[in-house]
């Protein structure tokens, strides 16, 4: 441990702590900075995080200094503040200050730091600026404005050390230096949009989000990416009933600060054209009371098929129905469905967010042949909750002969043939939890409203339970979550209503190996 005095505060840090981090703790806010990023190698080029260390003749950058026992550091002396101001001014002299047309405005390092540390009158006239090309498309997801770049080299270091693809570089020298990709090279890797997140200014922006929304209009909720079994922690940025973008949310044990480009597109399915919006019975639109009457007419189901896309809460309600009504006849669908490619960073081969949760709820997966046998053997309605069997045509052919009660979000083969179609909520329209491949139970929260005539899954399942004469039906989400602990033995000592923001591994006595990010 090293005892350090920062701005008069005596603090203790483990040896090897970066002075930058120590100062952040002491000050309650980070030092001004552009190039420092906790997950990238130190570059030390923006020169903003200068501090005064007693006994050293010159100011020193905190990002390339480690704490030493007895170190006395000043971050708010006149000399330091003046240096911060002057270096910031040098960052800005050739910046176009085109904030009114810049996507980054509102979450921009230059704007924030100017307000915090700058606030000087400009000394450079417009005609005197070095200009660089704007709006250069450098890949399928990212567009580059070289004029706004402050050459912090974060994107270069990201491509070199995180994705190890090395597409980006700084070309030429001095104030002729510009960021870019080599001729003929595209920034085209599965994690390319992360450079947009780490770009402290508006030099790298997302082609998907570009010009869609001013960021200060957006609200955010914490969520979990439903794209694969990794369960990257994300933030949904939305306004009114539209989601505009997905950003990764820091979770050291899961995804660190990154997420894949394909996960960022998951929001698009929420507002898709093919959403199921109204209940239908035998192909015609009906209201909910009529729908329930029809379901009552069909009688109780003999088989429940859930989906690895459903939340853990929904899985457990499905299991409740199956065990009380169908004699435990339940499946979570096909064992080989929704599989794809994996990589060594975040993307998992399992493209569902909650296969582990389905297993915990006691729903087994089967091969197509086994599942077809199971379906054929049932002589009662079949309740299918949002599974579409990855479009397997043999299964839909088999289901043709059956009465299907389908709870789903999007049009598919099953919704077309089902006797009853009840529209339910997408993941972004409800609360719930997914269990990732490392058994981490993670909460996602509602961002936007579901379609007007759609139902929230757990309420619909609870209504069906009452319809089919079950008692002790949970009346609220906390009650559903208590039911989870009751019905899943692995979670019997786990409080589903008090899950930490970064998720928890139930009963994890042994060390958590979820840090694959």
């Amino acid at each position, binding site marked *: 441990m090293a005892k350090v005095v920062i701005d008069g505060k005596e603090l203790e840090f483990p040896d090897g702590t970066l002075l930058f981090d120590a100062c952040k703790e002491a000050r309650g806010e980070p030092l001004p900075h552009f190039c420092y990023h906790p997950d990238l190698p130190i570059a030390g080029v923006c020169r903003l995080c200068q501090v005064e260390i007693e006994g050293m003749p010159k100011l020193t950058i905190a990002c390339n200094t480690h704490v030493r026992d007895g170190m006395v550091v000043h971050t708010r002396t006149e000399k330091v503040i003046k240096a911060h101001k002057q270096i910031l001014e040098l960052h800005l002299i050739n910046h176009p200050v085109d904030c009114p047309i810049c996507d980054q405005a509102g979450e921009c390092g230059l704007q924030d730091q100017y307000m915090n540390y700058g606030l000087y009158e400009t000394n450079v006239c417009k005609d005197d600026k070095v200009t660089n090309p704007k709006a250069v498309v450098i890949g399928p997801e990212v567009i580059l404005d070289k004029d706004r770049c402050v050459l912090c080299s974060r994107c270069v270091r990201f491509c070199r050390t995180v994705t190890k693809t090395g597409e980006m570089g700084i070309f*030429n020298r001095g104030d*002729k230096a510009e960021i870019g990709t080599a001729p003929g090279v595209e920034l085209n890797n599965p994690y390319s949009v992360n450079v947009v997140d780490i770009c402290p200014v508006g030099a790298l922006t997302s082609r998907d989000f570009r010009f869609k929304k001013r960021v200060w209009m957006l609200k955010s909720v914490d969520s979990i990416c439903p794209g694969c079994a990794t369960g990257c922690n994300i933030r949904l940025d939305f306004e009114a009933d539209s989601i505009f973008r997905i950003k990764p949310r820091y979770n050291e044990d899961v995804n660190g600060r990154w997420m894949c480009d394909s996960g960022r597109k998951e929001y698009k399915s929420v507002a898709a054209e093919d959403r199921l919006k109204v209940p239908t019975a035998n192909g015609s639109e009906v209201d909910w009371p009529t729908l329930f009457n029809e379901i009552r007419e069909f009688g109780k189901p003999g088989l429940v098929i859930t989906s690895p896309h459903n939340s853990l809460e929904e899985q457990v309600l499905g299991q409740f129905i199956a065990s009380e009504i169908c004699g435990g006849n339940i499946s979570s669908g096909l064992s080989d469905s929704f599989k794809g490619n994996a990589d060594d960073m975040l993307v998992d081969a399992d493209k569902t967010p909650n296969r582990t949760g389905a297993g915990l709820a006691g729903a087994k997966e089967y091969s197509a042949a086994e599942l077809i046998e199971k379906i054929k053997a049932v002589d009662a309605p079949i309740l299918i909750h949002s599974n579409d069997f990855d479009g397997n045509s043999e299964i839909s052919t088999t289901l043709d002969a059956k009465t299907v009660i389908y709870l789903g979000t999007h049009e598919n083969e099953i919704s077309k043939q089902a006797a009853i179609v009840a529209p339910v909520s997408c993941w972004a329209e409800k609360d719930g939890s997914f269990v990732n491949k490392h058994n981490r139970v993670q909460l996602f929260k509602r961002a936007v409203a579901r379609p007007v005539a759609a139902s929230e899954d757990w309420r619909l399942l609870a209504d069906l339970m009452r319809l089919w004469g079950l008692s002790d039906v949970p009346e609220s989400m906390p009650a559903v979550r208590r039911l989870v602990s009751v019905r899943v033995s692995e979670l019997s000592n786990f409080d589903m209503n008090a899950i930490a923001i970064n998720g928890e591994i139930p009963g994890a006595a042994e060390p958590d190996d979820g840090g694959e990010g």
Partner: protein
Amino acid sequence: MTNNQYKILSRRFDRNDAHNISVYEADGGYVGLKKVLSHMSREQVIAEVKESGLRGRGGAGFPAGVKWGFVPEDVEDIYFMVNADESEPGTFKDRFLLDYDPHMVIEGSIISSWAVRAKLCVIYIRGEFGWLVDRVQAAVDQAYAAGYLGENIQGSGYTLNMIVHKGAGAYICGEETGLINSVEGRKGQPRLKPPFPAVCGFLDKPTIVNNVETVASVPDIIIDGASEYRKHGTEKSAGTKLFSVSGPVKNPGIHEIPLGLPFNEFFHEWLGGMADGEELKAVIMGGSSVPVLTAEEAMETNLDYESLAEAGTMLGSGGMIIIPERCDMVELIQVLMHFYWDESCGQCTPCREGTGWLHRIVKKLRKGEGTLEDLDLIENVCEGMAGLTICPLSDAAVMPIISFLEKYRPEFEALIQNEKESISSSRWAREIRS
């Protein structure tokens, strides 16, 4: 001329074919190497060099023996690099050593490499010195053939290989970590320190980088001993030093002087004073990066590290630029600002943006479009650049312009008040102004 007794490093400059190993050996060449390999321990060599007071001749003046002592004991792969990227405006001493006495540089490099246990020595020659690459490579080949390089040198068991590496023409590769990056095939940009190259340098292994003149001084220190070396110079600035003098003096060119020599004496007796019709206005003592001295200041100082520091400037590389009275100081600073703007590697923001800004302000002044506020702005910009970057290039741009402004402010003000474009006396300065 009374200065022949001080010709030590430069003693073979006017001898025919001194670049050939036979001439060099006949003149006592490679004796130092043989002495080291057969009679001395590494510690003795380092101690001798420390004792001699030899300081880095590239500009910083750091004691060479002390630098060698930083190499960690327990590491196998160690590298030695000779910095021949001589690019500081006004400096042209190393090229003489490489051109006229390459074997003295090579012998010094082998001894230095041995002292720090290096297994590879790289001589990094600036790209513009194309012919010198051939010259030095030929000498290295001769040294290999004579058994001074390669495996088991002179039966000592020590193996050293030597590579002559040509730079691609960047001033910043003369900064030792920029040089190391360049040899590694990376962009020539200085590295963050710490770690220092003596601990983590080329290929992340300990690497010592020394200037050509520094290593060339080593054989004599070994042969004659530290006390002989110390006979010239002062207590803290020991030995002789090459000065490359440019400007309208009677005897410009390379002069080897004992450190501590009064500038007055050097100027009048060695340089022969100003050329006919010229009058001394100012002197840049140690290469374009050091603060300028007025004629009066120069006449009162001595040519050694301490005296020049006291006078507010630096010995630097010994690239002395004599500035005549007729020279327009604003034009001269424009040339220098163009240089630093052009050569900034662009890594650190203060230097990248600051050198460009200074260059643009000076251009504006020269066009007669400047204001008095611009002079304050220059000082303000310089404050945001000095001492705040990874390497000293930023300071190298700040020191001249601040001293020019301080000492020749009336010339700047006259330009502003006349509101007239300054007529250039130099075609090149006219060209770069646009």
